[in-house]
């Protein structure tokens, strides 16, 4: 009896799923449910004949999914933050031009960065900046000052209070890392990153791990993309979000997938997201993203003290170089993972010992102990790939080879394994030297 009911239910469900109306728009996106749900409700209200289906995948998984589908069976819209993903999809001929869907009221540039793809394969739909999110209760309980710049998170007082994620797990963390590397320079940038990581309690494995950890008070502060911080703040959590001077404001994008079922309806959705009502949704407290439409067009809708992306971009000291970033993409990801993510325990121990030595040697600037400390710092906070190597095209080329080729795989693995082993040794040496210096 029970089994028969099940089969009927299954049959019924199968029939209803076959009886799809022709007017379904499917959107692949990495954005959170609050945002997509708000767009679904608003869009279906103004376009009653179209059903919006959301397919939530992280950027990389979304691309892999798309590649597997034949022409005519693909979803209509691709909607994620990372511009590099769209570049790759356009190269693989998986995107159609969307030039005609532009909203003319959207400015061409944000700072020095173009809002829309010059080739016309994707359009900026919202703006995003990177900064520090912190928990006010945590800071108060641990007597920590309010951070305003990345450097503030490197102080000894912050040891064990920072939460970070790995760029390999989070496109937004990768942009944050690149922002720091491009504004400080390669070696100084890594020094900042290594010290910030040394102060970290954990490297979370989901990009949402940092905002989540800061929201619930596991971490005091951490680098996040703005809407995570702002949406938590406007949902009532005791958190704040600030943009350091070293930040980059870049567009999050939307594009039309080629070979989709309902291209015309898909275009209607893209146009909707760029229209005034579509942009206003971004300002809802639970969404809290920065619109691409200038605030002059949205008067009366923008909450008081809401960040103004154009002003932030003007203040920022970084001009984001997309080409530089994509050329060394793999190396940054792997170097971070091998020397930070997988060696965090040793890096933390070295950092702790260095802080201890600094405290003991306060005011001592010369002599063998000061030298030992300086040596320990150099060992712990110098990247294993130097400035010269990262600018060497031959070195970059190794990492862009076909990984199915055993030779290529072996060469890359050799580097990874070498970085992993050497960083472990160096962190341990640094810890020993600093401990000795503190005696």
């Amino acid at each position, binding site marked *: 009896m029970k089994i028969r009911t*099940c089969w009927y*239910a299954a049959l019924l*469900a199968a029939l209803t*799923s*076959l009886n799809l109306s022709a007017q379904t728009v499917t959107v692949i996106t990495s954005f*959170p*449910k*609050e945002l997509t749900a708000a767009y679904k409700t608003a869009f279906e209200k103004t376009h009653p004949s179209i059903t919006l*289906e*959301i*397919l*939530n995948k*992280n950027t*990389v*998984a979304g691309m892999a*999914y798309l590649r*597997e589908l*034949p022409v005519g*069976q693909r979803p209509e819209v691709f909607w994620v933050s990372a511009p590099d993903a769209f570049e790759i999809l356009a190269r693989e001929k998986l995107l159609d031009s969307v030039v005609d869907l532009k909203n003319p009221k959207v400015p061409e540039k944000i700072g020095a960065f173009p809002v829309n793809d010059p080739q016309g394969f994707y359009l900026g739909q919202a703006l995003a900046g990177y900064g520090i999110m912190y*928990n006010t*209760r*945590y800071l108060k309980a641990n007597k920590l000052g309010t951070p305003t710049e990345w450097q503030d998170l490197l102080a000894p007082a912050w040891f064990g209070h920072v939460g970070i994620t790995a760029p*390999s*797990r989070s496109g937004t963390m990768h942009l944050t890392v690149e922002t720091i590397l491009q504004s400080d320079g390669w070696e100084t940038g890594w020094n900042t990153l290594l010290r910030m990581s040394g102060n970290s309690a*954990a*490297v979370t*494995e*989901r990009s*949402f*791990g940092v*905002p*989540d950890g800061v*929201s*619930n*008070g*596991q971490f005091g502060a951490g680098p996040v993309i703005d809407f*995570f911080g702002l*949406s*938590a703040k406007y*949902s*009532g*959590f*005791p958190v704040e979000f600030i943009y350091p001077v070293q930040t980059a404001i870049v567009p999050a994008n939307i594009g039309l997938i080629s070979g989709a079922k309902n291209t015309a309806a898909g275009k209607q959705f893209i146009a909707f997201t760029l229209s005034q009502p579509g942009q206003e949704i971004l300002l809802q407290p*639970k969404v809290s993203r920065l619109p691409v439409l200038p605030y002059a067009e949205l008067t009366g809708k923008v909450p008081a003290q809401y960040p103004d992306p154009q002003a932030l971009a003007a203040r920022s000291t970084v001009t984001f170089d997309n080409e530089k970033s994509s050329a060394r993409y793999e190396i940054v990801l792997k170097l971070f*993972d091998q020397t930070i*993510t*997988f060696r965090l*325990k040793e890096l933390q121990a070295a950092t702790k010992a260095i802080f201890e030595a600094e405290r003991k040697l306060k005011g001592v600037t010369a002599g063998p102990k000061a030298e030992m400390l300086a040596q320990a710092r150099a060992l712990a906070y110098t990247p294993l790939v130097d400035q010269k190597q990262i600018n060497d095209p031959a070195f970059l080329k190794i990492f862009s080879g*076909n*990984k*199915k*080729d*055993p030779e*290529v*795989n*072996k060469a890359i*693995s050799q580097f*990874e*394994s070498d970085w992993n*082993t050497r960083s472990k040794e160096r962190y341990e040496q640094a810890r020993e030297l600093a401990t000795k210096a503190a005696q």
Partner: protein
Amino acid sequence: MQRLGGPALAALGILGLLSVFLILPIATVFVSAFSDARGQITLAHFAVFFQQPLMLESFYNSLYVALSASVAAALIAVPLAYLTVRFQFRGALLIQTLGVLPLIMPPFVGAVALQLIFGRSGSVNLILNDWFGVTLPLMEGLNGVIFVEALHYFPFILMNLTVSLRNIDGAMEEAALNLGARGWRLFIRIIFPLAMPGFVAGMALVFVKVFDDLGTPLVLGATNMLAPQAYLRITQVGMDDPMGYVISVMMIVFSIFAMWLSVRVLKGRDYSTLQKGGNALQQRQLSKGESILAYGWIGLIMLLVLSPHLGVLLLSFASVWSFAPLPDGYTLAHYATVFEQSPGMLSNTLLYCGLAAGIDVLLGTSIAYLILRTKLVARHWLDWIASAALAIPGLVLAIGYLRTFRGVLVPGTDVLFTATWFLIMIAYAIRRLPYALRSCMAALQQVHHSLEEAAASMGATRLRTVRRVMIPLMAGGMLAGFVTSFITAAVELSATMMLVTKESQAPMSYGIYLYMQSTSGRGPGAALGVLAIVAVALGTYASHWLVSRHQRLTQIHRPQG
């Protein structure tokens, strides 16, 4: 030959099913691990694996965590199982049901909730720090993984062991008592060894499950383990990265080895009992002191086990919860959001998991029967193949499906096979088949051959014997299999994430994950989690009730004896 026709046909059918939905996708993985860019066979990728200290460290860590978690899970489960079966004990059914509760929560949700309770700024540590100025690093590093996994997976041991203990013939105990064995000695020498099939089956399940669990280490940030490494390689470097496949192959091989070992341990011994429904183990009354001890132990464990649920429950009602032992305020808004936005997810979960668990019990019973009761050539291959599913990461199986059925249309329509929920359901059925199979095997192992022979000599056909004698005797084990398959499928995430093609076909586990991607979505995500727990708990309770009612009814109709 005529007599073997039916079983042989059944074996072929099962083999066909497993070939299409299990062997083919795994073959894709193996081919990828052993081939280079030009499609030539190579071992080079494996050489690379063994040259990387990180990979070896991950391998060692995975082994350590899986072993420790199995032992810790056994420490929790064995006393609970023994107490509920051995003593007259109020609320034994409650403990059984409560003992299932950890399984019905996706591991990553459990880890998130445990962070809220036991984490760095969790309720417990905030209070400890306030009162005594100390904190417990329960959730740090590998220990955190072991803690969460043991709390999450001990029901595997509890369920299997309870069934085994219940099936022990009371006469064995009486004989031992007559010969002077008492107390501890009786337990160690007689009762525990007789319950070995259930215990070993449970331990092996926990080991393998922890060995390839992905969600918990990821949420806790323990990356230096095999499953996270494979996942990171495949999602980050892409489908072309051979290392991900190499790690997958290593995991597959090692998990199969562990399962083989557990079979090996039991081999050559006879655990079957002659009677069923006659005398079970004696149920004793607890003395007052024992009673306090027992309730104390159970209370402590229940508190630990229920803490993730408590965390999720609080989170689902919390308006804001941040750096405080308890939420700032309470609201029902998250439940309203869930009912407004995602009403279909509950029915999807029930549909997919119900079908998958049904298929599993059907296949599990058939395979168990073929292996234990027929002399079919190579019948053990069915067991090995089905059990291999345990070792296949969901992500890899899903990728295999997408590749294998690429471009295949549902007959008579223009709908892609890969775009239907059928594949999600089948992935659940395949991945959960080993659980059902273990339970069915353990149940059948304890039904003595002579009972069937008796039925046959009374003139019952083979089919009738199965239907009237074996299935009623195996009902407990089959139900355990159904429930295990159902609830573990309900919390499966990694394959689901790859195979869901639209939100309207998403089950609850996926919905919880989706919501949990942002701070303002934590509340609705937790609310959905609570609904999932309630739904599955009700289902489990109902099936327990159905079976005990069925057993009572059959007992009434049974002639006195």
